[in-house]
């Protein structure tokens, strides 16, 4: 079957891609700016086509715990929300990480803290990448920069989630969620008929009973489990780093940006080069694992880096770690739901690196 | 006339000495031992086995499921 071309919102693309990826269940709760995901799925009613379960839960808490239940049965399940709702989901997310369950969580980020704004932001980077909930754990975090990637990353997320028995987050933002672009949609995949051997599917006489839990009272056993998680995260750090380079070959200055900011920065690279400043862009696609090595290598070739994020400066800390003092690193970004303009980025770059 | 007779087997290692079986037994078959089991509990035992009628009341209320019951007509 061939791919199908459609004009869609980012949120709609995620919903349609979920159906086509053969997802077994979606559990959501309305919150701006991502409610279209739940609305689209309810209208598409995939129960009648693929058999996919779609349910509006009574809260984000309930929704993420439904994801826990479905994932523990070995099903391909997902939820989506936006920042305040993702905060509520943190309880379930850490239990999912602790029970090593695969699932997809979509965060269409809006500005905070608190109820904040409904406009796009990238201020949930720390929450997504550094833990979010309690305990030592990591999500695999994918940052789409287009409606096409919103769609493509659904299938990729499920693949990674099951490969590593680990929750995966698509960290998008209100701009990509709401904007319309053309998108090539993959053909319909069949829902999986086989469950992983660890799943709770009802105990046949041929195996021991399967238990899904994150509880361990023996500190030695718990530590051994924590070490197992560390080994898993290290493997992910080795094998799953994804990024995109844009005019980095001859760059003297490097912009580091993901998602919507990376789209803006592509234009900034062009504007800067028109002014004779050789600027490149490194776009992390995976935020965990972060492309530390790649950025560290580029630090040996450029005079400075500017981390551009719609936040008070979060990813910049990882850029600083990557660069490890080799060259100056600064942060620039707008907040409160304001999307940075390409011109602002160039002006900021000039003010930081080219003054006098 | 046929008489109903019963007999119980108590897994004393698992017994926690809660005494619920003793007070439930309708014939006064069960009493608590004077010595403790390996968990440190005064375990239940059939002090008057000839009184047992195999009604299984003790086993049905035993939280820890330590009692097995047999019943026959003689």
């Amino acid at each position: 079957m061939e791919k199908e071309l459609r004009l869609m919102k980012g949120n709609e693309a995620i919903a349609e891609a979920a159906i086509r990826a053969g997802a077994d269940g979606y559990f959501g709760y309305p919150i701006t700016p991502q409610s279209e995901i739940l609305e689209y799925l309810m209208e598409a009613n995939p129960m009648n086509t693929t058999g996919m379960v779609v349910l509006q839960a009574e809260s984000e808490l309930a929704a993420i715990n439904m994801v826990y239940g479905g994932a523990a049965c070995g099903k391909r399940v997902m939820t989506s929300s936006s920042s305040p709702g993702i905060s509520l989901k943190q309880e379930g997310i850490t239990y999912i990480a602790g029970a090593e369950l695969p699932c997809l969580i979509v965060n269409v980020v809006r500005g905070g803290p608190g109820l904040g704004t409904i406009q796009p932001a990238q201020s949930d980077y720390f929450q997504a990448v550094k833990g979010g909930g309690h305990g030592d754990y990591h999500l695999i975090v994918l940052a789409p920069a287009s409606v096409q990637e919103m769609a493509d990353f659904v299938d990729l997320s499920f693949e990674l989630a099951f490969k590593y028995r680990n929750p995966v987050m698509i960290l998008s933002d209100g701009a990509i969620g709401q904007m319309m672009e053309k998108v090539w949609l993959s053909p319909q995949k069949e829902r999986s008929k086989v469950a992983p051997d660890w799943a709770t599917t009802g105990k046949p006489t041929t195996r021991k009973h399967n238990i899904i839990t994150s509880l361990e009272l023996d500190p030695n056993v718990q530590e051994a489990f924590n070490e197992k998680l560390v080994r898993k995260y290290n493997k992910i750090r080795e094998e799953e780093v994804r990024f995109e380079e844009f005019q980095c070959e001859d760059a003297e200055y490097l912009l580091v940006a993901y998602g919507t900011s990376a789209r803006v920065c592509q234009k900034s690279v062009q504007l800067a080069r028109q002014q004779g400043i050789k600027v490149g862009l490194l776009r992390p696609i995976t935020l965990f694992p972060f492309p530390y090595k790649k950025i560290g290598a580029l630090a040996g070739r450029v005079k400075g880096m500017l981390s551009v994020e719609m936040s008070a400066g979060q990813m910049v800390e990882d850029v600083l770690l990557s660069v490890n003092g080799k060259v100056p690193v600064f942060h620039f970004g707008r907040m409160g739901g304001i999307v940075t303009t390409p011109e602002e980025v160039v002006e900021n770059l000039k003010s930081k690196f080219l003054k006098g | 006339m046929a008489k109903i007779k019963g007999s119980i087997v108590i897994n004393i290692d698992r017994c926690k000495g809660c005494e619920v079986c003793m007070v439930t037994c309708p014939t006064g078959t069960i009493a608590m031992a004077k010595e403790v089991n390996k968990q440190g509990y005064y375990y239940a035992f059939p002090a008057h086995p000839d009184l047992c009628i195999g009604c299984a009341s003790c086993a049905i209320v035993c939280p820890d499921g330590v009692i097995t019951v047999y019943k026959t007509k003689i």
Partner: protein
Amino acid sequence: MAEVTGIKEYIKPENLVYTRTKLMTENVLHYCPGCGHSTAHRILAEVIDEEGLQSETIGVCPVGCSVFLYNYIDVDVQEAAHGRAPAVATAVKRLMPDKFVFTYQGDGDLAAIGTAETIHSCNRGENILIIFINNGIYGMTGGQMAPTTLEGMKTATCPYGRDVKLMGYPLKITEIVATLPGTYYVTRQSVHTPANVRKTKKAIKKAVQYQKLNKGTCFIEIVSNCPSGWKMTPVQANKWMEENMFAKYPLGDIKTPVE
């Protein structure tokens, strides 16, 4: 295995009338002596065994004393976050509609932190069995006040007795869920005497049948004891439960199917 036996001549396989179900594992239950949790676990396991449902069962256990249910009943079990078992079970049943799905929750889990999940799962008529153990106290954390703690009852966090003006009233959540159209069968039972154990077991069997017929949520409250938390012997606790708990939480069916 150390054991004491009655009259040996009657102990023959053909005379066996009761033994622990093989669906209970060999693990010694961690519950305190005389705790109703142990009995409730055992009769649930007996029903699953007698109905031939071991391979069809997915259980969801809570946070609280019964967090370790999975160590004792030999079926597939998921351990849910505190109060979230009905949400977890909702997804399990919807994704695995042919399985027998139950939650097993205490009063703090079901009627305090998990109230929203309880009410909404029941209101959606999720086709699951909810077993609710009500002993009026938080056992696992050391005997603190629960939503179902009786008026005047002393706990670690209401050491002078529950003052309803300050701490609210005992919550009769079973009566609340019975008002929801999604619940099909709602009953309140106990497991402290042979007759009550038999009734509770019958109720669980009914719930199994109703779930097979997709009738909606079945909700079985088991009023139970907490000898350690109540600071009584098990026998005293059962007597106190009859005199005090049953007065507030009377046993019997609250909502029965209209045939």
